[in-house]
C-alpha cells in the first residue's frame, strides 16, 4: 500500500487504519454548521483572488459556488427538506472517488457531503494537474485563514494509484461511496464490497445534447446570436467536449428550411468563438475525430460532414435512430432537424443526461420531461448551463443522498 496524504498535512505514508480511526474520532459536525460555511467563504475568497486560479475559468466558477450567499441558499433548500416529523442527519463517512480528469469535481462532491455534516475521504488519482495543485493549495490556505481545524479533521484527501486494497479498506469503513468515472471504472469499484448498510451513488458515462428552436434563432438579433454561440461554446469546449454534460448532438426544431437556414450562421458563430477564444485541438485529437467521422459515415451513420476547422466537425444525421453514442470529443457535433420536440422522445435513452435548450416555453420543456417519463434525461437547462454544478445531478438530489432521515413521532 502506498499513498500520499494530501490533506491534512503532508506525510508520505500513513497507516490507513489509524487515519480512518482519527476520522471517526473527529468532531461530529451538524449540517451547515458555522465552521463549514465560514470555510467555504474563505475558500471562495481564496479562489477569486488567487492569480493562478484566475487562469482557469472552471476554478472561478467553483469559487462562485462556494460563496457565502450560494452556500446559505443551499442551506435554505436543505432546511426546506425538514418535514417536521423527519430530522435530516449526516450519513457519516463519505468516500469520494472522483474522475481522474475533470479536476474540479472532487471539490463539488466533497462540498455537498461536507455541508451536510459528513466526514470525507477523497481519493485523488496519481495524475497531477495545475488545477488540482491550485485547489489543494487554496484548500489548505482557506483552512488556515478560517481556523477550520474541524474541517481538516473531518476531511482526508489521499492520493494513490489503482490499489484495490486501499479502496477496499476505505469502502469497508464508508457509509456512502460516491464514484465518478467511465462505466468500466464504476463497475470495477462496484465489485469492491461496502458495509451492509452503506449506499453507493454512481456517476457513470453519460451523453448530452442540445435543442434549439430554429425560428427563435432566426428571430434573434446579432448580439443574441453571438451570446448563444458563446454559451454553447462554454458548454462544449471547456472540457474538450469530453465532459458528460457537454452537448454532442444538436437538434434543430422547426420546418426543414428554417432549420437549414438557422444551422449555417450558428455553426459560423460557433467557429468564430473557437477562433476568438483561441481554442486549439492537438493534431492527434483531430486525427482521432477524423477517424471517428469516417467510420460513422462508412457505417451509414451520417449523411454529410463539414469541418470548417480542426476544432469543429459537423456530421448530419438523416434520422435520429442511427445515432450511436460513442464519441471522440474535441468538437464534433451531430446535427439533426426535426419538426417537433417529440422526435426526441423516440430516441432518448437512460444514458442521456443533459438537454440544453434555446427558444422554448417552460411548459414545453416540462411536457417533454413528463413525456419522457423516465426513459432518460436528468437535466433540462438553458444553453450555457450544461456544466453548472447543482445539488440535482444525474437524477439525484445530492443533499438528500448525503443525509439520512430520522423519523420522530410523538
Amino acid at each position: 500500500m502506498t499513498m500520499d496524504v494530501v490533506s491534512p498535512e503532508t506525510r508520505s505514508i500513513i497507516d490507513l487504519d489509524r487515519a480512518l480511526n482519527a476520522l471517526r474520532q473527529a468532531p461530529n459536525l451538524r449540517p451547515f454548521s458555522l465552521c463549514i460555511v465560514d470555510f467555504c467563504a474563505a475558500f471562495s475568497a481564496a479562489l477569486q483572488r488567487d492569480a493562478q486560479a484566475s487562469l482557469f475559468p472552471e476554478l472561478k466558477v467553483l469559487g462562485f459556488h462556494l460563496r457565502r450567499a450560494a452556500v446559505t441558499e443551499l442551506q435554505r433548500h436543505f432546511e426546506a427538506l425538514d418535514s417536521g416529523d423527519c430530522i435530516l442527519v449526516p450519513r457519516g463517512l463519505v468516500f469520494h472517488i472522483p474522475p481522474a480528469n475533470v479536476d474540479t469535481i472532487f471539490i463539488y462532491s466533497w462540498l455537498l457531503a461536507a455541508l451536510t455534516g459528513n466526514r470525507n475521504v477523497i481519493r485523488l488519482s496519481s495524475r497531477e494537474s495545475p488545477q488540482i495543485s491550485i485547489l489543494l493549495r487554496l484548500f489548505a490556505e482557506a483552512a488556515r485563514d478560517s481556523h477550520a481545524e474541524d474541517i481538516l479533521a473531518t476531511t482526508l484527501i489521499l492520493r494513490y494509484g489503482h490499489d484495490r486494497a486501499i479502496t477496499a479498506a476505505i469502502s469497508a469503513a464508508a457509509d456512502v461511496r460516491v464514484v465518478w468515472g467511465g462505466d468500466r471504472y464504476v463497475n470495477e469499484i462496484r465489485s469492491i464490497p461496502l458495509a451492509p448498510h452503506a449506499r453507493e451513488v454512481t456517476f457513470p458515462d453519460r451523453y448530452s445534447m442540445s435543442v434549439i428552436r430554429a425560428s427563435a434563432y432566426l428571430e434573434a438579433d446579432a448580439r443574441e446570436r453571438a451570446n448563444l454561440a458563446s454559451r454553447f461554446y462554454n458548454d462544449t469546449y471547456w472540457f474538450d467536449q469530453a465532459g458528460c454534460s457537454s452537448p454532442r448532438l444538436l437538434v434543430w426544431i422547426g420546418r426543414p428550411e428554417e432549420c437549414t437556414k438557422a444551422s449555417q450562421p450558428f455553426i459560423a458563430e460557433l467557429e468564430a468563438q473557437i477562433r476568438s477564444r483561441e481554442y486549439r485541438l492537438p493534431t492527434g485529437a483531430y486525427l482521432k475525430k477524423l477517424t471517428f467521422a469516417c467510420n460513422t459515415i462508412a457505417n451509414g451513420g451520417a449523411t454529410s460532414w463539414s469541418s470548417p476547422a480542426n476544432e469543429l466537425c459537423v456530421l448530419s444525421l438523416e434520422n435520429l435512430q442511427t445515432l450511436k453514442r460513442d464519441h471522440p470529443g474535441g468538437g464534433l457535433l451531430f446535427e439533426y432537424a426535426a419538426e417537433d420536440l417529440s422526435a426526441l422522445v423516440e430516441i432518448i435513452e437512460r444514458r442521456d443526461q443533459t438537454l440544453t435548450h434555446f427558444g422554448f416555453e417552460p411548459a414545453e420543456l416540462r411536457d417533454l420531461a413528463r413525456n419522457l417519463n423516465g426513459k432518460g434525461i436528468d437535466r433540462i437547462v438553458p444553453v450555457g448551463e450544461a456544466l453548472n454544478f447543482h445539488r440535482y445531478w444525474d437524477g439525484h438530489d445530492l443533499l438528500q443522498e448525503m443525509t439520512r432521515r430520522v423519523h420522530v413521532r410523538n
Partner: protein
Amino acid sequence: MTFEDLLRAPAFSLDQATKRTTLLEELSSLNEWHRERCIPYRRILDRMWPDKAESLDPLPYLPVGIFKSQRLVSVPDEEIAVTLSSSGTTGQEVSRVYLDRTTAHRQTLALGHTMSHLLGTRRLPMVLVDTRSLMKDRSQFSARGAGVLGMMNFGREHFWTLDENMQLDIWGFRRFLARHGDSPFLMFGFTFMVWQYLYRQLQGAAVNLENGILIHSGGWKKLQEEAVDNSEFKRRLREATGLKRVYNFYGMAEQVGSVFLEGDDGYLYTSNFSEVIVRDPVTWREAAPGATGVIQVLSTLPLSYPGHSILTEDLGIVHGADDSTCGRRGTRFSVTGRVPRAELRGCSDTHAFGSHA
C-alpha cells in the same frame, strides 16, 4: 503509365512531373474502382469528398486508424487470400488489411522492383534478424511476419539469427559468415530487433559484417528513448561489426510493398509506385518543402482494399524532389516522429481500474 510500365522503368527513375501525372490518373481510377466495390468506402467518398480532384493534393485519403475499426474490402470474401493484421502502437485495436492474390502479387513485384535498386537481380545469402517461429500460421499474418516473408524473397540460404527467446545463435551466425561472409550478403530485420537483439548481443563478439547489406524498418520509438537516431544507429553498427551498407525503409502494414527506401544520403525516397504528401496540420493542404506535417502515403498497389491513399499518424518533412545526390529521382523526405497521442479531459474517459493511471 500502367503498372507494367512502372515495373519496366528502372527504380527511382521517374521525374516528378511524370510521376505525379501518372499517379493522379492511377489513383483517380483506383478511387472509382474501390467506390464501385466497397460500400463503406463509397459512402466516405460521396459524403466527404464530393469534388473531383485535378491534382494529387485534393485527392481523398483515409485516416490510417479506420483500418482498425472498419472492414474495408473491395473483392468478394472468397478471393481474400491473406489477412494482414498489425497492432500499431496502441496495442489494443488491430489494423486489418485484406489481400487477394492479385494485390499480393503486385506488392511482391513492386517491392522487388524497388529493392533491386540496392540488391540487383540475383538472390544473396540472407540473414534474418528474427525468429523462425514467426512463420507458423500463414493465413493470419502479423505485419512483422508479412514483412519478413516479403523480404525473404530477396535472399537464399536463409539464416534465422534468433531463437524463440530472442537469444542470438552466435555459432550458427559464425558458420553462416564462414560460408558467405566474404562476398555480399543480405540482412533484414525490424529496426528495434536489430538494435536490441542483434547489435546488443554482437557487441564484443568480433564478427565481421563488412560485406553485409542491412535493410531494416519498423519505427524508431524505442530507440528514441535511448536517444539513438538513424545516423547513430548506423555509426554504432559500423563500429561494432564493420557493417557499412545500412538502409532503413518506411512503410506500413496498410500499404505493404509500397516502401520508401533510404538512399546513401540518409533520406527516404518515393518509389515508382508511391508518393508522399506532407500536410499542414491546420489547413490540411500540402505543406511547403521543409515544413513539418502529417504524412500521407499514396500507393498504386492496393486493389483488394481501398488503401491507396492513407493519412498516417506520422510526422515528416519533404526536403525536395528529383534533387538527390545519390542518383535517385522522386520525393526526398524524412520521418521525424509520430503525432503525439492526445489525452482529452472529461469525465467519461476515466482510466480504467487496473490500467495505468
